[in-house]
């Protein structure tokens, strides 16, 4: 095994155990791992922002332009110069007097984000999920006993969607009939929460399996080798 891989497995195993030690209580090993983690991810974020965003979209575009003719070059590259300027405006945060300038790029991000989200939300959620709920209330012809759930399930969905929607009413006092319906909504919500919780366990345990498997299959052999127990 190459040295760097050997070293890597030892480090990875050490850090794995350091994080797990937090389950016992906060301790120096965890603090050590935590600070390494924050430092390394911050460095990673900076490098990837450079290589994935700034370098290909900004620097290479600027270098591509023919700067012998600055005017046309500016026109060609304004779509990358403008956001760079907006980005630089963010640096006004470093000067408390001028920090309001950063509102302009922030407004850009917030405005665009809000605008893009509206029609996409309508499309992906409102239209899709409303129309998927539609179901006939009475079957066309007599249905076989074995298919009865195919007919009943959509009706349960209709009831569930409507009652949970009614539970979310804010400006209408929920009493009498409305109270009953919104109580049914709560029942549906609770079923969803319980089911979702139960289903999630599996995914999370998979992660522990991954770590334990790493410790057992990658790291343990190294210890036994080290101790001269390996074959």
């Amino acid at each position, binding site marked *: 095994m190459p040295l760097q891989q050997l070293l890597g*497995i030892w480090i*990875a*195993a050490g*850090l*794995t155990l350091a994080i797990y030690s937090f389950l016992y209580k906060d301790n120096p090993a965890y603090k050590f791992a935590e*600070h*390494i983690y924050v430092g*390394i*991810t*911050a*460095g990673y974020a*900076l*490098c*990837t*922002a450079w*290589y994935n*965003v700034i370098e290909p979209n900004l620097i290479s575009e600027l270098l591509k332009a023919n700067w012998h003719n600055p005017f046309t070059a500016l026109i060609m590259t304004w779509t*990358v110069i403008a*956001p760079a300027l*907006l*980005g630089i405006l*963010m*640096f006004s945060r*470093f000067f408390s007097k001028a920090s*309001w300038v950063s*509102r*302009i*790029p922030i*407004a*850009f*991000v917030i*405005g665009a984000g*809000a*605008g893009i989200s*509206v029609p996409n*939300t*309508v499309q992906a959620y*409102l239209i899709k*999920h409303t129309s998927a709920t539609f179901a006939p209330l009475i079957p066309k012809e007599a249905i076989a006993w074995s*298919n009865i*759930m*195919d007919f009943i399930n959509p009706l349960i969905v209709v*009831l569930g969607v409507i009652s*949970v929607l009614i539970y979310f009413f804010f400006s209408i006092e929920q009493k009498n009939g409305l109270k009953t319906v919104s109580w049914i909504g709560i*029942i*549906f919500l*609770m*079923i*969803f929460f*319980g*089911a979702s*919780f*139960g*289903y*999630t366990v*599996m995914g999370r345990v998979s*992660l*522990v399996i991954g*770590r334990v498997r*790493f410790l057992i299959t990658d790291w343990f052999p190294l210890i036994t080798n080290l101790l001269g127990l390996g074959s």
Partner: protein
Amino acid sequence: MDFFKRQLPTLLVLVLGLGMIIQYYIPTTFSQQVLKNVNLWIQIIAAFTLCIGITSLLRTHYTKIRLQHSGWAYSIILYIVFIAMVILGFYRGIQEGTPFRWLFDYVQTPLSSTTFSLTAFFICSAAYRAFRARTMEATIMLIAAIIVMIGRIPFGDMLSAYLPSFIPGFNDMAGWIFNTPGMAARRAILLGISLGGIATSLRIILGIERSYQGKD
């Protein structure tokens, strides 16, 4: 001056917000270009702003080291790792086979996998601590959780083979709970969220909700 401080950002939000909504309905090449550029711009602004974030992080830990607050030695470790990562990243690149990748594979990846896997431990303790049948609603949640947990493992499949399947569609109880009542509730939550999101977007675009702007 007040125009630049208050009106301009509000106006920018209004123009961009409405502009991006209209863009959605127009299929021309220009319209696609606008969407692409706006997304690119957001990315570039975020990349620049990251510098402010990193400065904030480094300053916090610099203060700790300077004033020798408890645990200041850990802050030195943070500095060392951060600087190593940045230098390696810029000096040798971030592709496969570089020292940067090595750090990513053998330090960052095990750290994130392990932290992620803590969820399993916490779910178990939360289940023990909080899943009490105090009210009828809590009981229903608990029962749903148990049925699904049994249903998703091979043990549940063995169990359901012995159960009489006189009601059709009930041989997979866990699946039914998901696909029918569970999905109905989630769908309604999503519908509510989309309405809430649209209303919030509208309030932002029209400048009714401006608390994110702060004051002078």
